[in-house]
């Protein structure tokens, strides 16, 4: 059983909460996909007062684990401040740590990420770092106190699916016991099923669902795909064979056509 900082999640799909056509459609997406975690980005302007209360109430009504996100932070200091604010606002010590190093591709800044992860872990946060497939970086994050990793599939919002299969397979193989969530870059349910079959523990999405023509239907499709991939992994798939082989012996058949 995979635990995320001691918590067992009823399903392995996590959904972001931004860019939906309306909060009602967002709520439908959660209902139909049975996603068990909602990431919520903390905009500092909405924090510290009642201004964001309307939306926050709608998120609370989803009745899922909330994972606040330091989206949009570009330095460790900024991310740490935002995380502390999020802890007050959302009353949870879970934090998705996102420190952006490149504004255009939203690629994480590995150096600031490790600094922030260490500080926040020391402060008692349960840090979910948004990272790349880099094994050395993974090692530093674990050393900084992270117990979960969230490698990207591809840059945020691209919908490209996994662009470095070898890297992700090798990261998975290197740390078989660390819960890992593929975060960002997925566009299709088949890609979500794929990473679950590879042995990843969960999938986090936002754009692929929110920007679909029918977000709630797409969310449901992703929910099914994540379950399918997880089941397939547990079911221990056959090894592929490099030659076509009949599955029943031909000998003994009465007639051959």
């Amino acid at each position, binding site marked *: 059983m995979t635990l995320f900082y001691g918590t067992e999640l009823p399903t392995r799909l996590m959904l972001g909460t931004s860019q939906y*056509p*309306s*909060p*009602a*459609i967002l*709520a439908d997406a959660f209902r139909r996909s049975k996603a068990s975690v909602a990431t919520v980005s903390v*905009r500092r*302007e*909405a924090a510290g*007062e*009642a*201004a*964001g*209360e*309307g*939306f926050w*109430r*709608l998120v609370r009504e989803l009745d899922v684990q909330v994972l606040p996100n330091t989206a*949009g932070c570009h330095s460790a200091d900024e991310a740490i401040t935002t995380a502390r604010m999020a802890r007050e606002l959302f009353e949870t010590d879970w934090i998705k740590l996102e420190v952006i190093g490149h504004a255009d591709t939203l690629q994480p800044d590995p150096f600031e990420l490790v600094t922030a992860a260490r500080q926040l872990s020391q402060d008692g946060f349960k840090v979910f770092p948004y990272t790349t497939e880099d094994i050395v970086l993974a090692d530093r994050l674990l050393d900084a106190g992270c117990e979960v990793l969230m490698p990207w599939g591809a840059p945020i*919002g691209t919908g490209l699916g996994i662009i470095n299969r070898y890297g992700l397979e090798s990261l998975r193989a290197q740390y078989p016991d660390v819960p890992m969530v593929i975060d960002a870059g997925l566009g299709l349910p088949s890609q979500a099923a794929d990473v679950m079959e590879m042995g990843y523990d969960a999938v986090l999405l936002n*754009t692929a669902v929110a*920007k679909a*023509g029918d977000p709630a239907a797409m969310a449901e499709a992703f929910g099914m795909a994540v379950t399918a991939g997880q089941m397939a992994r547990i079911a221990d798939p056959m090894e592929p064979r490099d030659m076509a082989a009949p599955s029943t012996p031909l000998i003994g058949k009465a007639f051959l056509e």
Partner: protein
Amino acid sequence: MTEPLSTKPVRIIGAGVAGLCLASELMSRGQRVELHDRHDEPGPHACSWWAGGMLAPFCEGETAEEPVVRFGGEAAGWWHQKGVEVTQQGTLVLTLGRDTRELDRFARRTLHHQMADADMIARLEPTLANRHRRGLFFETEAHLTPRDALAMLRDSLAQQGVAITRTMPVDQNPNGGTDGEVDNLTIDCRGLAAADQLDDLRGVKGEMMVLRCPDITLNRPIRLLHPRFPIYIVPRGDGVFMLGATQIESSDRNRATARSVLELLSAAYALHPAFGEAEILEIGVDARPAFADNLPRIRRRGQTVFVNGLFRHGFLLAPAVARMTADYILNNQRPEIMDEDNR
């Protein structure tokens, strides 16, 4: 003039776009009204003051639900009939550089458009010639200037003897009466201020700017598709442009952030570098009133009818919402957007 249906006036609270449209609609059907607001003029206290004024139902259909497109179809004709200047030049939707695939998605999810190639874009908007290879043209859409439209409604109501009263009506019997009774009705059109009564109403913050840039001439609203923040630029004439708008889940009405302003200006600059020389005339902030599905609602509670939740579609939806509210009050026709009061 038509004979008043009821001698008692219907009280409308809130003289933003929803209240003014409703007052105007009721008066034109012969129902007297009283219009109450804390301010006796349309102004920056109402979020319609900061609106883009695009009557673009098909473009909005990209993300908005079907009723917005259908109700929005009534807007241009209604405003024109009220004497408001409506410019019917369509909408041009463009993308920047590598986002051109966003256009295909936008085209798939919207109606009544045609692909515009470089030549067509140059013909429609000579200022943008050679800067964009592809766009989408929504020929039938229109726009108006919100502050002029609000002033026009206010003036024409004043001519009919309806002035905006700054004292609020005293509600003698908030829970009495039955459906269909015109006497003693209060229509609450206060927008986000009505969140004190409607606990499912939320604010969605928008930031906008007004720029003066005489080097640029645009004939119609331009929408820029960008994966992170769609923006639009609406020409107001005389080299003035409205640039909007952010959409943030917050009811804050006062603080424009540096980030939002940067995002808006960068997009304008990317559309045409001459915007870099623009003079900044205004930075506006307000919060739009919205329900969870971002659709408008008419809700009855005792002798009060709440008309609210027009979200980012004030000028687009207020005419249809006013029509439905009037049909409800005067003819007891249940509006499509009526909902149960669950309080």
